[in-house]
């Protein structure tokens, strides 16, 4: 009896406030963008967020941001919540791109367009803005090849530390690197997935590579933090293996300045975030985007070019 009473109590309050809340809603004419973000822990995502936020500010859109806290189920609940708030458009940088399908379907059923800002997509999204990852991997190998020739390194042994396979778009970085390596006559002696996807994971994985192939000449780690970890492992082992990373984060910039990392493929997270909102603006104006993949250029960073790059990034983030 007591239990039933308590359940009824909760339901009564919920019902009451549901009616109270509903009465106050007027028709919203202003545009609201809901942005669901993997996490704010890393500079890459902070840049994506700033891009989305700045674009909304410029266009006069209302901006709502929910942090997924790196939790896939929270991500889905947040998406449903945004749909419930009747936002005009959704931008999402998903922690688990494979898990957004049903939620995106709900959004599209509610006539809310969805643009994925990086990572990947499942379900009927309107567009995905993603770096040209395959090209990035190829650029990494081409740069390594150039460095080997400059330094007179004869060894043809290279290795790759991949991202986790569920990130199908980021996985193309490793694919591009391996394909270009074979094309240029190199032998990929170590092809591993960096586990866990952290700096420590990069360190561990690099150590494994060195144990198996002590004379490995160059490695490509497809994610920034992992590459810096690998660079530290090489330094600790007293080797001179060349490391190229991916992302363009401050840690990699520092590693290049410290001389432990040879190069880095930089993405444009601010631009990805910013353009995602611009795509939504086009969709609101009537342009059709359906399951579109919009590739974003990546750039090669070398120890000479990092300072300029850092200045540009700082300027964007201070805006």
């Amino acid at each position, binding site marked *: 009896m007591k239990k039933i009473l308590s359940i009824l109590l909760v339901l009564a309050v919920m019902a009451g406030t549901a009616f109270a*809340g509903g009465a106050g809603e007027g028709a919203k004419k202003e545009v609201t963008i809901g942005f669901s973000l993997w996490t704010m822990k890393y500079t890459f995502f902070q840049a994506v967020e700033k891009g989305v936020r700045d674009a909304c500010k410029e266009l006069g859109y209302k901006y709502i941001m929910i942090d997924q806290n790196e939790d896939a189920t929270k991500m889905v609940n947040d998406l449903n*919540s945004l749909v*419930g708030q009747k936002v005009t458009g959704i931008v999402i940088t998903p922690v688990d791109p494979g898990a957004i399908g049903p939620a995106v379907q709900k959004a599209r059923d509610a006539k809310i367009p969805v643009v994925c800002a990086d990572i990947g997509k499942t379900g009927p999204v309107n567009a995905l803005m993603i770096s040209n990852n395959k090209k990035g991997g190829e650029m990494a190998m081409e740069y390594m090849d150039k460095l080997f020739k400059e330094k007179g390194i004869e060894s043809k042994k290279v290795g790759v530390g991949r991202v986790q396979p*569920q990130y199908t778009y980021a996985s193309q970085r490793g694919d591009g690197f391996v394909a270009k390596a074979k094309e240029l006559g190199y032998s990929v002696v170590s092809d591993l997935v960096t586990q866990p996807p952290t700096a420590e994971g990069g360190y561990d994985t690099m150590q494994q590579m060195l144990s198996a192939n002590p004379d490995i000449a160059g490695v490509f780690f497809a994610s920034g933090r992992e590459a810096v970890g690998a660079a530290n492992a090489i330094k600790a082992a007293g080797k001179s293996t060349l490391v190229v990373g991916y992302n363009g984060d401050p840690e990699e910039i520092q590693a290049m300045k410290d001389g432990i990392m040879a190069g880095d493929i930089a993405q444009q997270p601010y631009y990805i975030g910013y353009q995602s909102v611009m795509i939504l603006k086009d969709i609101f104006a009537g342009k059709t985007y359906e399951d579109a993949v919009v590739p974003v250029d990546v750039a090669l960073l070398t120890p000479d070019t990092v300072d300029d790059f850092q200045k540009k990034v700082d300027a964007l983030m201070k805006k």
Partner: protein
Amino acid sequence: MNGARGSARVWIASRWDSFGLPALIAVLVLVFSLLSSTFASGYNLFSNLAFSSLVGIGAIGMVFCIMSGDFDISVGSMSALAGVLGASLVGRIGGVGAVLVTVATATVCGIVNGVFVTKLRIPAFITTLGMQYVYRAIAYIYTSNTPVYIKDPFWLFLGSGTVLGIPLPIIITAICFAAAVYVLRKTPFGRSVIAVGTNKTAAMLSGINVDFIKNMVFVLVGFFVGVATVVTASYLGSVNPGMTGQGYEFQVITVVVLGGTALTGGNGNMLGAFFASLFLTYLQNGLGLKQVNSYWQFVATGLVLIFAVGINRVKSALLGQREL
């Protein structure tokens, strides 16, 4: 102690188990509704009710487990393994079969845990700590670390469908909790679980087959984790060997403790676990809607847990009950 104040405290304490959390939820809902009209929308309240089932259903088995004096921290990994196994077989045995395989796999994991604890006499904490790695490793190996997508309409319906306007997860949760409360309060099994958790030796001496009870408890943990996995996988449309169930054990145990079940075993609060999962879901959702930084949400959850355990101790002291 002053007579009037003292009796008021005792009055609240005696009703805390039944009304404490629901009252807190009512207050929470009221406060957040005033702060955010979106929170108060029927859509939001109901969708969060459905969402709370992901942890709530899994907590049912854990309530039995903790009441019997044991722990199971392999539930997250169980979820991953059961999920990938079931999801991968959709093409071969259809949606209904795949769902049954998911529940069965998790239940089998529970049986395995139970065997280690009762036959090999390895403490539950150690057993499930070790099996946690094993189950997830099997999930990784089986799928080569790739996610498995669910497109089957039946399975997807379980998470996002509605019956008479009520989201299916809510209906499933209601049935599960109703059954669990009945088993706990009205069956000899339920009473035996409480007895084993209160005093294992006394229970054994009074004729209860302690090993059987413990085995059944782990089976229940597995079963309900399986059901929760089915609903979660439906929500997400995919199962991921690395991500599914990560941190699940902590969420479930938090909900069980917040709900009023003592970690020392013995009596527990089954419906309390339901209300706790509801409370935490609304708290997280309300803070999120007010754009509160996520780290403060973690602080809030931690404080709520400590506060809840504190309240339980005060309540026990006031009623002269055994210290938690």
